[in-house]
């Protein structure tokens, strides 16, 4: 996912919010991960917005994508220039209305945004984990989040919502804890990566690992693999856009030049844009976290992991009402993958709504303010709320 939030968001805001921490799996009660290794203690960064009602029946969990964090809406301070990553969707009177719902957004293990991941200190060695950090899966991420929801005293979530890798967590939540999820909104996502998606992730990982500063993941006390991570981000960023959006945004226009300079400095606008995105990204993201999260996304396979190879069997374990959304120009998780998901939901006898929203912005369309997307989510949640929470 990219960053689209403008300075000072439009309309109502949830205002100033705090990042909170939840800690679980303290030794000797470490969590046994899918890879067989143990991890603990585990810290998850999370934020909440709105008020949990007395029945604790109005909670919505938002799950973020690859490079996201728990800061989904509002500002951390008065001086904060940028609101959270989905501020257009989450807030008073917005698609996910914080006047009605208690909204939780949790970071994932393996990330570098406040939760336990490769850049946090390994209590056994008192140095950052680096590649000592176990390979985590989408299932491990969701199991850790479950302990947070338990700690908040919430027995059943009104909805789980997420796009991209967040959508994989949505599906994982539904299949692991069917009684805890009344409704689910997987956006711009898939039940498993295509070869194309794995290929792009692998090229991005290779870019990081080819950077001499990466040093087998042991770089926290020296120079960081900034070049590798920036290139990884540039590759990722291209897959989040579309031919059409790039044509409209950049075309073949040159940056601050009227003619070619016949060297390899950035000349085309698209080049300088990607370099800028890469540079910005290394300021906030950890290269090892990028490796771990992309690997978890590549490993995710709903049918293999939960349905003995059958997507239908996996969905028949779920109890949630579904709203599946895809975007016309998304070539990373194209609509046919969402349609396959919808087909399996129907065949499993579960309730599904599906809309392919017309948008030129590629995979990133789910992050960009879109009145249609907001009103669809709002209407769907309204119904779920009336059926379950009243």
């Amino acid at each position: 996912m990219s960053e689209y939030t403008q300075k000072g968001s439009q309309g109502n805001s949830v205002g100033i919010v705090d990042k909170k921490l939840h800690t679980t799996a303290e030794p000797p009660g470490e969590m046994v991960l899918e890879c067989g290794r143990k991890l603990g203690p585990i810290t998850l960064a999370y934020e909440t917005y709105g008020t949990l009602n007395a029945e604790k029946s109005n909670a919505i969990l938002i799950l973020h994508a690859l490079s996201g964090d728990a800061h989904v809406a509002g500002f951390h301070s008065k001086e904060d220039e940028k609101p959270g990553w989905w501020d257009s969707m989450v807030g008073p009177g917005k698609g996910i209305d914080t006047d009605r719902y208690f909204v939780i957004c949790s970071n994932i293990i393996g990330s570098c945004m406040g939760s336990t991941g490769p850049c946090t200190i390994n209590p056994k060695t008192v140095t950052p984990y680096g590649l000592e950090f176990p390979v985590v899966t989408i299932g491990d991420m969701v199991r850790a989040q479950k302990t947070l929801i338990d700690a908040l005293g919430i027995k059943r979530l009104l909805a789980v919502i997420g796009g991209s890798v967040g959508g994989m967590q949505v599906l994982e939540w539904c299949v692991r804890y069917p009684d805890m999820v009344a409704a689910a909104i997987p956006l711009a996502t898939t039940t498993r990566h295509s070869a194309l998606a794995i290929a792009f992730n692998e090229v991005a990982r290779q870019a990081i690992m080819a950077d001499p500063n990466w040093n087998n993941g042991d770089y926290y006390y020296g120079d960081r693999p900034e070049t590798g991570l920036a290139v990884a981000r540039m590759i990722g960023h291209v897959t989040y856009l579309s031919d059409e959006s790039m044509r409209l945004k950049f075309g073949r226009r040159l940056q601050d030049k009227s003619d070619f300079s016949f060297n390899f400095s950035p000349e085309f606008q698209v080049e300088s844009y990607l370099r800028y995105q890469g540079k910005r990204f290394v300021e906030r993201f950890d290269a090892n976290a990028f490796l771990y999260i992309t690997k978890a996304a590549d490993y995710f396979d709903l049918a293999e992991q939960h349905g003995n190879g059958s997507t239908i069997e996996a969905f028949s374990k779920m109890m949630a009402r579904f709203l599946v959304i895809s975007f016309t120009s998304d070539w990373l998780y194209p609509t046919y993958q969402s349609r396959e998901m919808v087909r399996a939901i129907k065949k499993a006898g579960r309730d599904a709504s599906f809309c392919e929203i017309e948008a030129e912005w590629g995979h990133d369309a789910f992050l960009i303010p879109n009145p249609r997307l907001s009103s669809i989510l709002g209407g769907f949640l309204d119904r779920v709320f009336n059926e379950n929470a009243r």
Partner: protein
Amino acid sequence: MKMPGKMMRFDLHLIASWIKPGTRVLDLGCGEGSLLEYLIQNKNVKGSGIEQNESRVAKCIEKGLSVIQGDINQEVEDYPDNSFDYVILSQTLQQVYAPDDLIRSMLHIGKMGIVSFPNFSHWRVRMHLLVTGYAPVTKQLPYQWFDTPNIRVITLKDFRKFAREVGYRILKEVAIDSQSVNKEGNIVRVLPDIRATYGIFLIGKE
């Protein structure tokens, strides 16, 4: 009969009157979902719909309806048998490429089907062709031959004959005189084959 906020088309009203409360209904080509909305509010049905047009699908989901964007001919294949009590195909049969396949699928996934279509043997249609010599253009079928989405011409008699040949039972039928855009309408009891603008059939498995 209790009406929803907005008046519903007369033919949809008749269809609604056939549906038993508390049943499961699938509406193929549900548009903006007015029939589904009515059935959920007044008959407490468990309703869902299929619609191809993105903005209509969005309208439906905004209203809180379960609607899937897709092609009805494909979408009907993906439900388990007998998932619904009624599968409705309203004013669409004349646009379907393979009506026999579609009706067969409808009766797999549903216990009963409700099918409605404009009657091509209405006297105005007959007169139009007889007198002018041009392919009929009426209020119910308002297109020229070259731009019409209505690739099938069907009469009430045709549909009854089709039922015998394809192998489904007609459980109920009603002929109406109504203009689709108009909310008013009458049930036609005398000479329906000639006087009805639309036919509505409740069909079941043989």
